[in-house]
């Protein structure tokens, strides 16, 4: 029933596409004909930005880790404020479509362009991975299909939406999908608030517990941790012993559950936690920096730095402003994006809190991305729950398709030149952009899509933000310095990201572990320092056209040295 409904809505949301599909000319593949109004373009940017990670993942992170995760959406919205203040209008006036084009235009260097394109590709891969993850979780929750079917759905969506029409065909879809996503969180939120019986003890001073009899099925083999003994009924393999539904008493401490095992917990029993998620009593969960992580303040600053400066380096965001008519409308667009994302920041706290009450078993399975998808049925069972689940699933589908398409188009636009250019180069680039995350998806071990997204932000902040900020505002930037800065920040951030994505059970402890988890606090200052230092050491390599480039970027259209346009 739910599956049918969700599928119907998904198809309906996709049906908009053919109407907007443009011709497959190379120019049409890259740009949406510069006629998009600020409001429409802001909807498209926000639509792209509210990815599977933001839509599904944030609620899950709040459910698992509490108040400390609220900094993430704040940093994301602040990132657009900084983007607006430092980059938007000058970048639009430069006439560059991608960051790669900007690097080549501003610095006149093919090498800098190649370094930037490599970064864009890496960022795109890191950004696509969580979209695959979100798609897998969504499909497995609403229809019980294996997670890889979700990955194939993303690939299919990208191939169908991007290959024929490029940006032209996705702008409208993304704008519509933003409002679809907003509806898909607002309507459930209003219903939940109305029916929520205000059993508001999510932050009582006790660990999370099952509010009703709950059967939990382990999807993967995992270690779980129990704080108090509990009487359960088990079907499957627990601690190496086979059980067939008999009741037994689980002692406090660690247990191993094999995939497919079902455990029935009575109401009031404490929720076991997967070994990946630290157990938090309610009051610690609700208090910032009390979550038992190491160096929580440094980790928070690192996340803020990565999201605030990383936003400008996300390829799919910067290319969007090219579709504005001029620098002024690009700036207005960025202002509207801040407004739209601010509205979205309301929801993680609400859904995370509700998830703590109604879907606590996710702490045991670790699949916290499923929070928003499971909530409707727990809070309002019956047909209303079905309808809301279908709505949320549609929003989730919109989230991972629009973000994936946006990222793929932007990445392809950046690297297509290196693959022969033109429509063929673009299509080859699309395949490169999608294939790597698809192959990496089975190896990625972090089950939380929003955590994976922070990796992309950290790489973007550590590599492309110095180029953009200094390229726009500092006359002394040299090509060698830009390349050096990209390498100095991008390489360690990428290495930390790979360790994070592929390493199980996760990075080590202490400062090193904290840095691998959130490297931006070191890599971003490093990248800026290297860029500035090398620039000052190579003063004779300042591009001759710098002064004209500055004038073109900062003067309103029609007053600059290159005339109107």
């Amino acid at each position, binding site marked *: 029933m739910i599956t049918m409904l969700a599928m119907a809505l998904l198809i309906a949301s996709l049906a908009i596409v053919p109407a907007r599909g443009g011709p497959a000319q190379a120019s049409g593949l890259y740009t949406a004909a510069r006629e998009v109004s600020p409001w429409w373009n802001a909807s498209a940017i926000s639509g792209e930005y509210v990815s599977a990670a933001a839509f599904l993942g944030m609620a899950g992170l709040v459910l698992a880790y509490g*108040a400390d995760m*609220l*900094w993430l*959406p*704040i*940093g994301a*919205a*602040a990132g*657009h*404020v*900084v983007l*607006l*203040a*430092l980059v938007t209008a000058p970048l639009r006036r430069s006439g560059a479509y991608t960051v790669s084009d900007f690097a080549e235009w501003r610095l006149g260097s093919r090498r800098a362009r190649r370094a930037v394109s490599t970064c864009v590709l890496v960022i795109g891969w890191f950004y696509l991975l969580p979209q695959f993850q979100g798609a897998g979780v969504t499909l497995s929750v609403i229809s019980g299909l294996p997670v890889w079917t979700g990955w194939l759905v993303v690939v299919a969506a990208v191939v169908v939406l991007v290959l024929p029409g490029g940006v032209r065909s996705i702008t409208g879809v993304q704008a519509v999908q933003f409002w679809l996503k907003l509806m898909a969180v607002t309507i459930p939120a209003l219903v939940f608030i109305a029916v929520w019986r205000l059993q*508001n003890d999510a932050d009582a001073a006790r660990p999370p517990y099952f509010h009703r009899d709950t059967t939990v099925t382990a999807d993967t083999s995992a270690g779980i941790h129990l704080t108090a003994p509990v009487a359960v009924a088990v079907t499957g393999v627990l601690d190496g012993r086979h059980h067939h539904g008999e009741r037994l008493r689980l002692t406090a401490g660690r247990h191993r559950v094999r995939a497919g095992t079902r455990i029935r917990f009575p109401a009031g029993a404490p929720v076991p936690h997967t070994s990946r998620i630290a157990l938090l009593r309610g009051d610690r969960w*609700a*208090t*910032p*920096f*009390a979550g038992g992580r190491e160096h*929580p*303040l440094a980790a928070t*600053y690192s996340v*803020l730095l990565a999201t*605030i400066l990383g936003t400008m380096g996300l390829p799919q965001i910067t290319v969007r402003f090219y579709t504005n008519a001029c620098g*002024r409308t690009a*700036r*207005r667009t*960025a*202002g509207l994006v*801040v*407004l739209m*994302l*601010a509205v979205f*920041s*309301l929801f*993680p*706290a*609400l859904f995370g809190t509700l998830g703590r009450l109604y879907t606590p078993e996710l702490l045991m399975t670790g699949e916290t991305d499923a929070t928003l998808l499971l909530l409707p049925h727990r809070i309002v069972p019956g047909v209303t729950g079905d309808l809301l689940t279908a709505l949320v699933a549609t929003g989730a589908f919109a989230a991972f398709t629009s973000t994936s398409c946006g990222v793929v188009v932007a990445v392809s636009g950046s690297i297509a030149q290196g693959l022969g250019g033109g429509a063929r180069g673009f299509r080859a680039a699309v395949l490169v952009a999608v294939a790597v995350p698809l192959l990496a998806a089975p190896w990625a071990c972090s089950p939380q899509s929003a955590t994976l997204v922070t990796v992309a932000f950290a790489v973007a902040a550590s590599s492309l933000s110095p180029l953009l900020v200094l390229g726009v*505002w500092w*006359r*002394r930037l040299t090509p060698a310095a830009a390349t050096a800065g990209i390498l100095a920040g991008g390489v360690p951030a990428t290495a930390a990201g790979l360790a994070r994505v592929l390493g199980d059970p996760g990075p080590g402890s202490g400062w090193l572990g904290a840095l691998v988890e959130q490297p931006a606090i070191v890599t971003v200052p490093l990248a800026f320092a290297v860029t500035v230092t090398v620039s000052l050491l190579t*003063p004779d390599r*300042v591009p*001759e*056209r*710098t*002064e*004209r480039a500055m*004038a073109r970027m*900062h*003067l*309103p259209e*029609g*007053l*600059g*040295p*290159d*005339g*109107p346009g």
Partner: protein
Amino acid sequence: MSERVTVTGPPSAAARPPHRAAQDPEGTGAAPVRSLMRVQAAHAALTCAIVALVGGGLPLLFAWEPVLSRIRILGVRLPWLVLSVVVPVVWVAVARRHVRLAERAERDFAAMARPE
């Protein structure tokens, strides 16, 4: 960079016809460009400073004063209310303010460069 000759002519240098300016990189009206850039940079710096103050200050505040986390307004703990409602509103206000100031600076520049 240092050997470049700075043109310190009157602001009307920017009012030259675009094609002449394009042929003559030294005559792009460097002085008015620099003055507009300075104004825009000052606005951008202030906007970023506000973001840095809020984003840098709030974590410190909550870390130093755990008491704040126990205050409840309408049943919601203060940090939750601040982080999911107040701060986003601040961002929207800062963004609006920046758009207004940047557009005003450009209007002033255009009026100066092209006195009608």
